[in-house]
């Protein structure tokens, strides 16, 4: 009997995790313009470029819960990294950061609790080429948490940096854990 129960829970866990949890992003491009130097002798007026607070909006949908799990929370973690291309950001002294500026909405609830979200909103977080914890949350059922606003920032803007196009791909990874 114990073996049967274990097998059921193993299958339940795998079935739950194999369901299509998804992370979607809107606002997928941020290409700010630097200020124009109008007076000889000056650097750019600002060394930091900051996007709108809702530059990108993330939505997180977790797998459908089954049986009793419909009542329990489904925890997720969102990781973040940036993969640079073209001119070297590090050689130019450029860095890119991200911050979660709001909670979005939705995520569901049950008799046992209400969805939540935490992390990533205290300060701008420098992005590297390695997946790094960004924020986490709990959804209930299949109700997605939508419109989680993300803000970006680039620092190190200077005419001392080599003239070039600097580009990066910011990759969010949703982990059903």
């Amino acid at each position, binding site marked *: 009997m114990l073996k049967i129960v274990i097998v059921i*829970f*193993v299958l339940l*866990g*795998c079935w*739950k*995790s*194999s369901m299509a*949890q*998804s*992370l*979607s*992003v809107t*606002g*997928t*491009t*941020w*290409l*700010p*313009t*630097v200020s124009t*130097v109008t*007076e*000889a*002798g*000056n*650097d750019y007026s600002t060394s930091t*470029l900051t996007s709108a607070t809702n*530059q*990108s909006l*993330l939505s997180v949908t977790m797998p459908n819960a089954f049986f009793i799990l419909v009542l329990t929370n489904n925890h997720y973690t969102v990781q973040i990294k*940036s993969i640079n291309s073209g*001119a070297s950001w590090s050689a*130019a002294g*450029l860095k*890119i950061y991200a911050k979660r500026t709001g909670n979005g909405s939705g995520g569901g609830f049950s008799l046992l609790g209400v969805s939540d979200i935490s992390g990533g909103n205290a300060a701008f977080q420098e992005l590297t080429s390695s997946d790094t914890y960004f924020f986490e949350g709990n959804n209930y059922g299949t109700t997605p948490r939508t419109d989680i606003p*993300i803000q*970006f920032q*680039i620092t190190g*803007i*200077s*005419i*001392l*940096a*080599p*003239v*070039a*196009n*600097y*580009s*990066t*791909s*910011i*990759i*969010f*990874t*949703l*982990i*059903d*854990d």
Partner: protein
Amino acid sequence: MASTCMAQTTGTVTAGVNLPLVALLDIEPVGGITLAFTAPSEAGAILGSSATDNTKWINVSSAVSSGLTRRITARISSTLPSGFQLRVQAANASTGAGTRGTSSGAVLLTNVDQTIVNGIAGAYTLSGSGNGYNLTYSLSIQSYSLLKSGTSTVTVVYTLQDN
């Protein structure tokens, strides 16, 4: 259990910035300078060895592609009165930041561009009088036999150009 069955999905945002070429130069403070010789008070005395001025400064903002450098050149765009020579020397810049190049020392000005500072890359000197490259003009007599009394206006043109 969860770790063996963990799944994930990703979303991507593209971000970036274009840093453009910048090449700005100006002279501070605005206005001209006067280089004058005083007449000798004693018959037979010389007019004077030279007249100098160091009140002018060149301010520069320069953003370049990796590996590119620039130079500042100077030339006379009008005719220098006969019998005179005009030299200019730019001191190395100590204000601002970046690769601000090296002075060529005192340069005899002609109607052809002469390099007075070379090796400028990404740099800014700060703006205004007292910042950047301090210019010292020196007007000297080349030939007494060609001198004529009077006043002449000479324009010196400075250019920040790519190497």
